[in-house]
C-alpha cells in the first residue's frame, strides 16, 4: 500500500506530531504509517481521510495500481 501522507502533511505545514494529535495516535504511529511500515485499518484510514478532508483513494493507493500509473 502506498500513501501520500508526507506530501499532504507538508502541504498543510503540519509536523508528524500535529497530525498525531489530530488523529489521537502517537507520533511514532504516524511515522510508521507514513513510511509504509504499517498499513492502517479501515477505521483509521477513514479518520485520516477526514482530517485531510479528502476521499480515501486520494491518500492511499494499491502498490500495483500505483506502479501501473507510473
Amino acid at each position, binding site marked *: 500500500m502506498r500513501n501520500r501522507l508526507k506530501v499532504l502533511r507538508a502541504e498543510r505545514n503540519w509536523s508528524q506530531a500535529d497530525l498525531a494529535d489530530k488523529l*489521537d*495516535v502517537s507520533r511514532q504511529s504516524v511515522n*510508521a504509517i507514513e*513510511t509504509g*511500515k*504499517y498499513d492502517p485499518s479501515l477505521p483509521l484510514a477513514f479518520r485520516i481521510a477526514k482530517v485531510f478532508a479528502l476521499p480515501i483513494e486520494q491518500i492511499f493507493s494499491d502498490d500495483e495500481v500505483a506502479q501501473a500509473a507510473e
Partner: protein
Amino acid sequence: MSVLPVSQNKRRALYRNLMVGLIAILGVLAFVSRSFGVEVHQGSSLILLPVVALAALQFGALDEVAKHAHYAAWYWGCLAALVAIGALAVGLSNGVVPFEPIATQAAHWIGSGAEGGFVAGLLAAPILMLAGYLVFSTIHWLRTR
C-alpha cells in the same frame, strides 16, 4: 464526568507514567530488600496490583499501530525465547552447556535446594520471554522513532 483526559494520547501517557513510577518504587523496594534484608513482600504485592490494572488500562488506550507492535514483539520475542529455552535444555542435558555457573547464579538470586531450583525454573521462561519482547520492541522503536 470523567477526570481522565479525553485525548487517548494523554490517557496513555498518564497510565504509562503512573506505571513507570510504581515500577520504580518496586525496584527501590527490591533493592532495599536485597541490600538491607528488609521484608517488603506485602508492600510489593500491594504495588504490583495497580501496576497490573494500569497495564490493562494502558493497553486499552494504545492506538492500533502500537498494539500491532506489541503483538509482533510478543510473538517474535516469545518464539525466540522458546528456541533459547529448548536449546538451553538440550545443551544442559548433553553437558554442552555447563550447569554449575547457572546453578550458582540461581542459588544466589533465588535460593538453593529443590525449592530454589523449582522457582528458578518457573522464572526462567518469563524472564527470557520478556527479554525477547524487549529486544523486538526496541527494534520496532528504532525503526519508527
